[in-house]
């Protein structure tokens, strides 16, 4: 991997979150009603939560509402945090539930396993060559057009700083299923890029 563009541009967003101990302390203080701790937690995690919500719902206003409700839930539920997962995966799981509720009310689906089961398996299809030829801007545009379920798993895997087991915890599915969803998402992305390439 000698890509000279690697790790440029969005490094601060993708850097792994290594303040786990601090987060536990913050959540403990939040549980005791410490507003400074809440503000610090908000600073630490709001951008990632907003980015993930925005990736899934595609609407800034709605994503901000999800962020707000997520942080309200953190404020109210911090005392129940047991430290069995990282704070990052905990807050993203809350955000995911908020997102799911919002989309459900709009009669949209976040994850539909039946839909995902119909997607191609792990073998690269012929469309993968479209990905090999694609520019970053084209990939970004195509990701925006993916189904919410695909955007969600891609965002969790690459935009939230979570490990695959943590993504599995958030989605409440086995790690193997996370991998199959990621593969399905990439296949859908490849098909979209291929279609766009043919239309040019």
């Amino acid at each position, binding site marked *: *991997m000698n*890509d000279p*563009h*690697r*790790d440029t*541009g*969005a490094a601060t*967003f*993708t850097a*792994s979150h290594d303040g786990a101990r601090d987060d536990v302390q913050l959540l403990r203080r939040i549980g005791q*009603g410490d*507003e400074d701790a*809440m*503000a610090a937690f*908000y*600073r630490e995690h*709001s*951008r*990632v939560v*907003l*980015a*993930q919500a*925005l*990736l899934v719902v595609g609407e*800034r206003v709605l994503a*901000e*509402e999800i*962020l*707000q*409700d997520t*942080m*309200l839930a953190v*404020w109210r539920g911090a005392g129940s945090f047991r430290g069995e997962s990282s704070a990052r995966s905990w807050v993203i799981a809350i955000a995911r539930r*908020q997102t799911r*509720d*919002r989309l459900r009310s709009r009669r949209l689906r976040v994850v539909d396993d039946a839909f995902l089961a119909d997607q191609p398996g*792990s073998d*690269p299809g012929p469309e*993968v060559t479209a*990905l*090999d030829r*694609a520019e*970053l801007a084209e*990939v*970004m545009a*195509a*990701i*925006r057009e993916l189904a919410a379920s695909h955007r969600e798993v*891609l*965002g969790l*895997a*690459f*935009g939230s700083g979570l*490990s*695959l087991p943590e993504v599995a915890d958030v989605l409440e599915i086995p*790690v193997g299923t996370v*991998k199959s969803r*990621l593969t399905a998402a*990439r296949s859908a*992305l490849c098909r979209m890029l291929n279609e766009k390439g043919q239309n040019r």
Partner: protein
Amino acid sequence: MNAGPADTRSPHLDLGDLIAEANGQPVDDRAREHLAHCEHCRAEADRWDLVARGVRGLAAAIPETAQPARPGGPRHTRLRVLTGSRRRAVLAAGVAAALVLLGAIGYGASNYVHIKFGTGGTGGQTVLTAVSGCAGLEQTAGTLEQVNGTSLVIKTASGRPVTVTTTASTFVSVSGALRSLITDGASVMVRGPRSGGTIEAAIVTVGQPFSAVNPAGYVPVKGTVSDASSAGFTLVTSSGTRIPVTTSGDTLVIVPHASLGQLRHGSTIFALGHAGPNGTLSARAVAAVSQFPPGGPGPFGAHLHISVHMRVGGRAHGCSPSAIAVALAMGG
């Protein structure tokens, strides 16, 4: 990786390794060595890396979230603060403490005017501390004497009356101790400390746009007003959560898009526009700051800065911060 001694599966890297590689996370030596020699896996790693960068690129493209500000933290770089003799007491709000964005419509466009009021740490009277982006516009400031239809009559610091005319497109904002402007059904953003499940409102913004900047330690909460009274209201969030909010005479209420009917006699007016006939000012933008009770808003400390971002449209020349300061020094 799948290539353990008893492993009969694919010899290539496991998806978990490829994802870890794309995320810059550590992979074991065996996987790294395999990657160095396997063209298939390198191609796969490159594909996942491109997907990962696409996701990160989208995330990096979003604007900053409403981040709680910290004392001493970064300030709006567009605002140039004037100091010393250039400060001129043009407003009498007598408020203190926190950074507030009033009517923040956008950043970076040439047709936005950024005006900053503040106490500058001296306490007492609020002063104009900076103006930028005010290209070719005239300005005036003073105390509101009366509203005649679409015109305002203000008295400048020198005692001279000035008529400010407005149109439907004039941007009007108000701020101050204006609890009466918080009414049922209004879309608001509330900032303030919490006590139990109740928010003690320090700042309530009524109507969009909501500021992206917060006083230290406050997490903004948006919702709709219900059961409004002089003592507070219930904030109903978009998810239906009901949050009790208390207000007091110290609560700073901001209405980014106000009507002339919401202006209060005696409030301090700052108007920008073009010179009209007979010494009038045809205003593109009007900012009104109402008087707080003696002692100022309690939740705040010693420093208040109100930044007004007015959309005025068009380009012109000759309204630099120093020109504003000189004009103010000459008596408005």
